[in-house]
Each structure stands twice: as C-alpha cells, then as structure tokens.
C-alpha cells in the first residue's frame, strides 16, 4: 500500500515536471519597449539578489551627467566617467559604436523573439543586434573565448520565467553617460509574461567587480504588437559629419 502511494506521488511529480518542461510560456513575437515601465512586477523583483540598487533609467528615462542611480563606481571608473565628454559621442568614430546588451535591452527600440526548445533568438532593432540564448547548455564558454556585445547567454526555465545568464561581454556603456562596464560584467535577466500576455516583463541584474562596488538591477517591459517586425537599423556614422557642419 505504502509503495503504491509512493509510486503515485513520484509519477505525479514526474508528470508535473514533464508538463512544465514541455510547455513553457511562448515569448515569441514582436515587442515594443514601454517608455514607462510602471510598477515593477513583484514576482520578478522577489528574485533579485538583496543589495542590488534599482536603476530608474529604463524606457524614456535616462540619467544626466555624473548620475548613476546609486551605483557605486570604483575610483578608476569614476575618473573615466568624469573625463567623458558628450561631444566625443558625436564623432564619426563613435556615433555608431554599438552598446552591449546591458544598455541595448532597455534602449527605446523593439525586440523580436523566436522561441525554440534548444535556443531562443532575440533580434534587437537597436544596432541590428541578435542574441542567441542557449537552453541546451549549462556551462558558459571557456574564459578565453571571444567577448562580444551580445556575450554568451545560457538560459533555463524556472516555472513561467526564463532565466538568462550572460558573460563574455565586451566593454560598453552601462548608463550612456560615461560609465563603462568591463569584460567581467555578469548579467542575469528574468523574463515572464504579464497575466494577460500582452506585456513582456523583465529584470536585468548585473555586477562588475572591476568597475562597481555594488550590483544594479533594471526593470524593463515591452508591449506585444501584432504584425510588426524589427526594422533595419543600418547605422550611418556620417550623421556625425552632419552634426558638425
């Protein structure tokens, strides 16, 4: 009798596990960034590591000069931020410099998601970027592997939430005002659908021991738009010449 009950429980657990594994929510589709993300989703925020400072610069919001939303910069990073000049971004060399996903995910551009069982592809309109999130890999690439603006992303499902762990990012801006992350930045993102399925909700946590003394977290949301697709960005650096003339 005891073993029958045990077998039933084990079978029920296996079935439940199989059901979750077989049917995660479908995040596929075209998502337009919300300029005002609204109140952060409690379920996602509950997963954020304690001590993370909340950055209110997503969507339309943006930090001004020497404003970093509570991030504590190490002396070298602070000196670099002080030395940074906005005019330097308005040059042919820099006007099409691609950000990493740290800044790009909350930029004012849409994303398009193609969801598979072994990987998920996210196309970002911003700078024509494409992310591949590997669901079939548990370990990151070796440390010596190339660092890129999209990095190495591995993901898994925790119930209805896609958890994405990213390393191997090349240096790029964090806040678009002189604060740069290093190649040591580590990003954890959690994505889930709103209850009505019309919004994609996400947190983006990051830590960078070379640049920051604390951790940051952003809350980002997108709204589903039917029938649209990512456009070409095709950045043209000659914009900087037009600015200078």
């Amino acid at each position, binding site marked *: 009798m005891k073993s029958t009950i045990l077998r039933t429980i084990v079978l029920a657990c296996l079935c439940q596990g199989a059901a979750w594994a077989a049917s995660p929510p479908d995040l596929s589709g075209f998502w337009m960034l919300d300029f005002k993300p609204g109140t952060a989703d409690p379920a996602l925020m509950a997963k954020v590591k304690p001590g993370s400072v909340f950055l209110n610069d997503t969507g339309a919001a943006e930090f001004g000069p020497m404003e970093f939303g509570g991030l504590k910069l190490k002396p070298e990073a602070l000196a670099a931020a002080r030395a940074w000049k906005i005019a330097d971004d308005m040059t042919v060399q820099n006007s099409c410099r691609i950000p990493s996903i740290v800044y790009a995910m909350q930029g004012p551009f849409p994303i398009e998601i193609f969801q598979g069982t072994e990987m998920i592809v996210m196309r970002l309109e911003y700078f024509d970027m494409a992310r591949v999130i590997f669901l079939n890999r548990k370990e990151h690439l070796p440390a010596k592997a190339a660092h890129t603006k999209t990095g190495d992303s591995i993901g898994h499902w925790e119930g209805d939430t896609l958890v994405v762990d990213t390393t191997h990012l090349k240096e790029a801006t964090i806040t678009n005002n002189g604060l740069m992350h290093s190649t040591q930045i580590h990003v954890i993102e959690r994505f889930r659908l709103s209850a009505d399925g019309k919004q994609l909700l996400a947190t983006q946590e990051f830590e960078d021991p070379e640049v920051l003394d604390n951790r940051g977290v952003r809350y980002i949301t997108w709204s589903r738009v039917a029938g649209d697709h990512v456009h070409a960005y095709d950045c043209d650096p000659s*914009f900087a010449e037009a600015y200078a003339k």
Partner: protein
Amino acid sequence: MKRRRRIPLLMAMAALAVSAAVHAHHSFAVFFDAEKVVKVKGTVTEFQFRNPHGLIRLDVADSAGAVSVWKVETNSPSILERRGWSRTTLKAGDVIVVEGWPARDGAPYLRMRSVTRPDGSVVGTPLDMSVSEQK
C-alpha cells in the same frame, strides 16, 4: 558697430515637465535640456533620414530678416516610420514649425518633438501621442 545676435522670430521657450524624451544613441539627458521646449519656424534646406538620427536643416529668419541655420535631430528613422514618417516626408523649401528640446550648450540644435506645417497639420504622430498609444 557690432551687431547683437537676435532671437529668431518664432522661438519661444517654455518650461515643461517632460517624461518622454526618447533617447537613442548619444545621451539625450546629457546633450539636451529636457526641462525646456523651443519652437522654431523655418524653411527646410535639407532632410536626412538615416540612423542613428535623422536631421532637418532649417533656415530661420528673425524679425529683421537675418537668417540663421538651425539643425533638428530626429528620432531613429525606424521609430519615425512607425509614426508615419518617410524619407520623402520633408523636402527642401517646405516651411515648418518644429517644437523640440534645445541643446544644453546653447547651439541652434534641437531634438525634435513635433513638426507642424503652416496649415496646422501635424507631420506624422508626435512623440507624446505615440507614447500614450502604446500604453
């Protein structure tokens, strides 16, 4: 006698609470003053429709007829396309009124918020309307 630079005819500055100044490549918050909105009427001499930003060049005459050149930076064309713009929306010779956020350094350089034609018709969907429609 040194002639004093005059303020363009239809330029007006008003303090506004702005929460939807969409940034893109370079920092909006660092480069532009989001607390002010400037309105400029002028004649289009050039319209570039390319990323990371479009650019409108305008001849703006002051009350004495002296002409100054203003440059107006737009959002990314891919964003503008969704707001009803195309690369042929403006052409040289068009007279328009541009409302936008001024450069912090005082240069005659704006970030476009809306464009209106002399008959009062608005070009595309202005930014704030676009934001509300997305919610």
